[in-house]
């Protein structure tokens, strides 16, 4: 059974709907960091994550009336963040396709990261491996493992079944393991 927003949050939403700027500000401050993290998990750069998170709160403000309270406020917000991020990625991909058409396949193939690079911190290795995962696997690993959301929450945010979330998580971690194999051997 999906849980709705907490009583306190429900009050904030009601007041924000009635036009209270303080209440809306409070909602933004409560959720801004997690919205930013979700956005970052998709777009993989700080500037993009900032733009997506801000745009998401503007959308929230504009459509607070339509929030029915069937799910938690954060789930609704993350779904908006996810949609905006995926749209942004599509736009970037289209632009890259246009630019890449002039490059040879050799150049494109050389982008893949294959192993350790001298001078890199452990966290950099992990971040790099994480961001080489396919979009959905990366999003599931970050939402589920880094942000600590439940399988059900992630399935509602990404609009897929819980089974799909579990599969993406398993495959994502499996790929990460392969990419980080050399780190585990060093330990």
């Amino acid at each position: 059974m999906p849980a709705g927003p907490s009583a306190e949050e429900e009050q904030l939403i009601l007041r924000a709907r009635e036009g209270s700027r303080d209440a809306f500000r409070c909602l933004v401050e409560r959720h801004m960091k997690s919205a930013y993290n979700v956005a970052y998990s998709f777009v993989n750069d700080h500037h993009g994550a900032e733009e997506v998170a801000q745009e998401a709160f503007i959308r929230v403000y504009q459509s607070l009336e339509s929030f029915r309270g069937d799910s938690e406020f954060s789930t609704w917000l993350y779904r908006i963040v996810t949609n905006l991020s995926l749209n942004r990625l599509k736009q970037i991909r289209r632009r890259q396709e246009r630019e890449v058409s002039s490059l040879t396949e050799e150049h494109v193939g050389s982008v893949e990261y294959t192993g350790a690079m001298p001078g890199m911190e452990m966290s950099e290795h992990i971040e790099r491996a994480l961001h080489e995962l396919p979009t959905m696997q990366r999003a599931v690993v970050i939402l589920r493992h880094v942000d600590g959301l439940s399988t059900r929450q992630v399935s509602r945010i990404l609009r897929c079944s819980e089974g799909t979330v579990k599969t993406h998580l398993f495959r994502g971690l499996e790929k990460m393991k392969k990419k980080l194999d050399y780190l585990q051997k060093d330990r």
Partner: protein
Amino acid sequence: MITHSYIRRRLYEYIRGELPPEEQDVIERHLLTCKRCRIAHEQMTLTIQVLSGDTSLPSEERSVEFWNTFATRVEEQIQRTRGAVVQKETPISDAFQWILGMRWRTALSIVGGFAAIAAAFFLWQGHPATPDNRQTEVAMPVPSALERVDERMAQYLRKSQTLLVGLTNKRAAAGRPVDIDAEREASRALVNEARLFRHEPLDPRSARLVGDLERIFIEVANTEPSRRTADIDMIRSGIRQENLLFKVRMAQARFEPAQGK
């Protein structure tokens, strides 16, 4: 029956102790007897250890100042968006001014046209119904808004059932990828239909079912041609796991009688 893939898809939750005790036990027993899953378990434990030790949140990389001013920047953008909306409204007022500034003959002919339409409407409304007409009115009552929603829901469920059955039974021809172009098209149409139900007064169970179906149909619609066989297997397992066909049949029983079927 418990399969290896069933175990592996739950390994993450098992390692983190998030499963109910009986499921933890099932996996524990399976790991004692299955070497392949045991290796997968060990590898995932190591990966989680590596990830847990060194993963920092992206938000932690931004300064305190950045977060202190974030809400203010959102508010400023909202103000700017509002300003843009007001700007957009200007062409409408321009149009009114254009109508008001029209030549009097043009304005008179437009007003006359509207008056003729209004007169025809009132004459039609005031026309006494013949006995046959009256009978028709009694025999065919106008459905209420709720009945119309029920009818649409029943149609939506029938189409969803057909699509789910089709997807469940879809098999690839030898050596060729699964062709689901028609299913993708149908899924897109059903996603659009599902969105229309969001504003309808559905009971929570039906609203949840519409949401679950929508998620599955979005997955079908977004299936990439290069990964169809793998993706369709995943979608099928989603349909099975969520018991969607059964839920659709149960919902049909709720909505079909409303149509007198």
